[in-house]
C-alpha cells in the first residue's frame, strides 16, 4: 500500500483544524486535513456566532484579544464574507448578584485595555428601549463582534486549499502509529478504501472526539460532550444591534442582518457524541422562549422557526487544551475549546502553527497546557450548574 507524506496532518476539519491548516500553509508546511464528515459539519457550524470578549476568563482574555485582532481583518484576508459585524456585546444583569458580576468583569476587561461602559437601569432602557424592566443594569463592550459560524470553517478550508493544503472529507482515521519520529495514519474513505498518511507533526483537532486520540498516547483529557440550545425566529424588523446576553448565560440573543433573531440559553444540553445525534428538547425551547419574552416582551408577536444544537467538547475548567502533548513529541492538541472555539480559533491556530514551525509561540497559551489536568492545585471556580444541565455526562462533574 502506498503512503502519502506530509509535514503535518490534522485530524478534524472543524474550524480549528481548517484555521490551523491555513496558518501552517502560510508558513510553508505541507498539510493534510482529515475530516470524517464534512468540513465544519459538527459543532463548528452550530454555535451562536458571538466573538465575545467581555466576561471571558482572565486566563483566556489575552488570547481572545489576539484572536480578535485576526478576526477584524479576516474577510479581507480570506477574500470572502463570513458575515463579520462588529456591533458590540451587552451583558445584562437581572439581579444584584448579576450586577456584581458585571462590575467584576468590567474591572478585569479594563485591566486588559478594553473599552467597557457600565449602564444603570435607566440608561440601559433608554439605549435599548425594547428591553423590559427586568433588566437592572448592563455592561457594553464595543469591540465584541459576530460572525456567521456556518460560513467560517468552509471559508478557511477554501483559503487553506488555495494556499496548497489538502482537505480530505469523508476520511475516517482508524488508527495512528508513532515511531522513528514520524506518525503513520490509517484512514478509510467513504468507498471503503484504506490509505496511509505519514507526517512529522500531528494535530488533534477532533473536537468532542479528541479524547480518543489523546488516550492513545497516554494522555487523559477529561473531556465531555454537551450542546448549546439554539433557536431562530422568522425575520423581524431590525431592532437589536449588539448581542444581548444575560450575564449568567440563561438567555442570549442577537439579530442577523437578514432580521432573524438567534436565541440561545444555558444550561447546555446532554448530547449523544457516540451516535452523533443531538436535538433541543421541546421543554427547553419553551423555557428559553419564556426567558426571551421576559426581557424582550415584543418578541411575543413573532414565531420561532427552527432549533438546533451540536456536539461540543468541554472540560470542567472551560478552557481549551492547546499546545504540545506531554507524552509524544510531534503531537499537538487543539481541542476541548468548551464553547470558545469560534472566538479563540484564529489565535489558537497561529499558536500551533508557530509551535510547529518555530518551536515556540508568541501567543499567550500557557494556561491551556494539557499538564494542568495532572497538576494538583485549586481548580478554577465556575458556575457549572448554570453552564450544564444535570444530565450532561461528565466523569468529573459531581452530581447530587
Amino acid at each position, binding site marked *: 500500500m502506498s503512503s502519502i507524506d506530509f509535514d503535518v496532518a490534522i485530524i478534524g476539519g472543524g474550524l480549528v483544524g481548517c484555521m490551523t491548516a491555513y496558518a501552517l500553509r502560510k508558513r510553508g508546511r505541507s498539510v493534510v486535513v482529515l475530516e470524517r464528515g464534512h468540513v465544519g459539519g459538527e459543532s463548528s457550524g452550530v454555535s451562536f456566532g458571538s466573538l465575545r470578549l467581555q466576561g471571558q476568563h482572565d486566563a483566556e482574555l489575552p488570547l481572545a484579544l489576539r484572536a480578535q485582532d485576526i478576526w477584524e481583518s479576516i474577510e479581507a484576508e480570506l477574500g470572502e464574507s463570513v458575515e463579520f459585524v462588529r456591533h458590540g456585546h451587552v451583558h445584562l444583569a437581572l439581579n444584584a448578584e448579576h450586577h456584581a458580576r458585571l462590575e467584576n468583569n468590567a474591572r478585569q476587561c479594563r485591566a486588559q485595555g478594553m473599552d467597557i461602559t457600565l449602564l444603570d437601569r435607566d440608561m440601559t432602557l433608554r439605549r435599548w428601549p425594547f428591553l423590559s424592566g427586568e433588566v437592572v443594569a448592563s455592561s457594553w463592550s464595543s469591540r465584541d463582534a459576530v460572525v456567521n459560524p456556518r460560513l467560517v470553517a468552509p471559508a478557511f478550508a477554501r483559503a487553506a486549499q488555495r494556499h496548497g493544503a489538502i482537505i480530505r472529507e469523508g476520511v475516517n482515521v482508524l488508527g495512528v502509529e508513532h515511531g522513528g519520529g514520524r506518525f503513520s495514519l490509517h484512514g478509510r474513505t467513504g468507498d471503503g478504501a484504506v490509505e496511509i498518511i505519514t507526517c512529522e507533526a500531528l494535530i488533534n483537532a477532533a473536537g468532542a472526539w479528541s479524547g480518543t486520540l489523546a488516550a492513545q498516547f497516554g494522555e487523559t483529557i477529561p473531556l465531555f460532550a454537551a450542546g448549546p440550545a439554539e433557536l431562530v425566529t422568522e425575520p423581524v424588523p431590525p431592532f437589536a444591534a449588539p448581542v444581548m446576553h444575560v450575564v449568567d448565560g440563561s438567555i442570549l440573543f442577537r439579530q442577523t442582518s437578514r432580521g432573524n433573531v438567534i436565541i440561545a440559553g444555558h444550561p447546555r444540553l446532554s448530547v449523544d457524541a457516540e451516535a452523533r445525534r443531538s436535538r433541543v428538547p421541546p421543554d427547553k425551547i419553551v423555557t428559553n*422562549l419564556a426567558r426571551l419574552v421576559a426581557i424582550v416582551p415584543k418578541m411575543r408577536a413573532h414565531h420561532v422557526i427552527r432549533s438546533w444544537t451540536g456536539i461540543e467538547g468541554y472540560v470542567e475548567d472551560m478552557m481549551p487544551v492547546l499546545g504540545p502533548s506531554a507524552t509524544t513529541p510531534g503531537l499537538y492538541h487543539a481541542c476541548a475549546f468548551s464553547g470558545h472555539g469560534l472566538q479563540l480559533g484564529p489565535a489558537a491556530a497561529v499558536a500551533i502553527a508557530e509551535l510547529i514551525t518555530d518551536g515556540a509561540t508568541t501567543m499567550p497559551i500557557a494556561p491551556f497546557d494539557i499538564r494542568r489536568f495532572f497538576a494538583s492545585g485549586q481548580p478554577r471556580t465556575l458556575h457549572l450548574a448554570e453552564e450544564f444541565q444535570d444530565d450532561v455526562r461528565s466523569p468529573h462533574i459531581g452530581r447530587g
Partner: protein
Amino acid sequence: MECRSRLLQTPALTRIVIVGAGPAGIAAAELLSRASVEVTLIDEALHPGGQYHRAPASGLNLDMGRLLGAGYVEYKTFHKDAAAVCAKVDYRPGMLAWSVHGGAVHVASRSATQALGFDALILATGATDRIMPVPGWTLPGVFTLGGAQALLKDQGCLIGRRVVVCGSSPLLYLAAVQYLRAGGEVAAVIDTTRFLDKLRALPDMLVAPNVLSSGLRHLVELKRRGVKIVHGATIDVFEGEGRVAAVLCTLPNAAPLRIACDAVAYGHGLRPETQLAELAGCALRYDAVQRNHVPDTDLDGRAGQGIYIAGDGGTIGGGQAAAVSGSLAAAAVLRDFGLSTVDIDLAARRRLLQRLRRFQRGLATAFRWPSERAMLLDDAVILCRCENVTFGEVRAALDQQGGTAEVNRIKAASRCGMGRCQGRFCGAGLAEVVAASAQQSDRERDRLRVQAPIKPLPISLAMDVSP
C-alpha cells in the same frame, strides 16, 4: 384482587395519540374507538377532513354538493362518520403538533403548549404540494393546486376570474372541474405530462377502476364545457407585472402558446409531510418511483418504536388508500399492544391498499416529477421563496463548495430552505439542483434535515411558562 387485575388490563393504560384528522386519522380513530381504547386525536385544522375532505369554515354556507358532484356522497359519509368518531375520542382541533421527543407529542395552540405522552403514536399527517419552480412562480396570483383547492373548499373563494390550471398532477383535472362548478372560468388546463405516458400507465391504473373512472369523468366534464386541455406542454413562464397575467408554454410540436389569465394553480404532485416521523426517529427511504422520501414502514404502517404511519404522510396514495391504511395502522396498534381486537378483514384491506398503491405508482410514473427542469431553469429564477434565493445563488454555492455536494451544506451556504417553510416547498427543487450539479441523475436525492418546530411556533405560547 379480581377488580385490580381488571384495572391493570384496562385499555386506558395504553396511551394512543393520532396526529391528523383527515381520512387516515379518522379511519384509525374510528377503529380504535370501536375497540373502546382511549384515543387522543390532534388536528391542526378546526374541522376534520384533512385536505381531501376539507369542509367549509364555520358559518359559511357553501354548496358542497354542487362543488363535489359525484364525490359528494363520499364527502357526506366521511363527515357524518367523523363527527361520530370525534365525539367518542379526545378530539383536539386547532392544535399544531410541533415536535415528537422523549415519548411525547408536543402540541401547541396559539397560547399554550403541552406534551402528550404516548405508548402508540399514529402519524396521519398527510401531504402538501410538490413544486418545481417556474419563472414567475412567486408572482401574486400564482397558487399551488392544493392551496387553490383549500381556498375554494374552506372559504368558497376563487383565486381569480380566469384561471390556468397547470403542472404535472392528476389533481389538475379535479381542481379545474371544481373551479368550473364554483362559477370560475378555467382558461386552460396545461398538463406537462404527455398523453402517451398516461396511456402507458393505464395497466397500473386499471387496478383501481373506480378512481380511474372518476378521473376520466373529470376529463369528460372539462371537454364538454369547452375547456382547452393541452398535454405534454412545457411551462416556460408565468408572465405579469405585479400580478400574473398569462402563462407561456411550448407545445409538443414546439409551437409557443400564450394563455391570458389572472390566476394560476399549479403543482407537480404531492410530497408526504414526514417531519414528525423523522423527529420520532423513523428511518426515511427514497422512493424512486414517487421520487419522495418516505418513512420506512411495513404494509400496516409500523415504523418502529410505537410509531405508526398512515395515509399520504407515509406513501402518497390518495384519500381512499389513506382511509384503508388508517384502519390497518389502528389494527396494528391493537395487536402490538395486546388490546381488544376488532372484527375487520385485515387481509382484504391489505390487498386493497396494495391495489390502490399500485394505482398511485401508475400515476406517479405517468405524471412525472419534472426533475430535469432544475437543470434548465435560468439563474434568475427564485428557488427558495421564503429567503428569496435564486437558482443562480444555489449554483454559485455549489461551485464554491467543490467536492461532494449535499443539500444541507448548500442550505448552510446559500440560505435556501432556511426560511419560514424550512424547505417544505423548495427542498424537492433544491435536491434536484444538487443532483444535477453532481451529474448523478440516478442517485438517491438528498433531503434537508428536520428540526423542531416543524412549522413556525408562536413565541406567545411561552407566556404562561415561568422563565
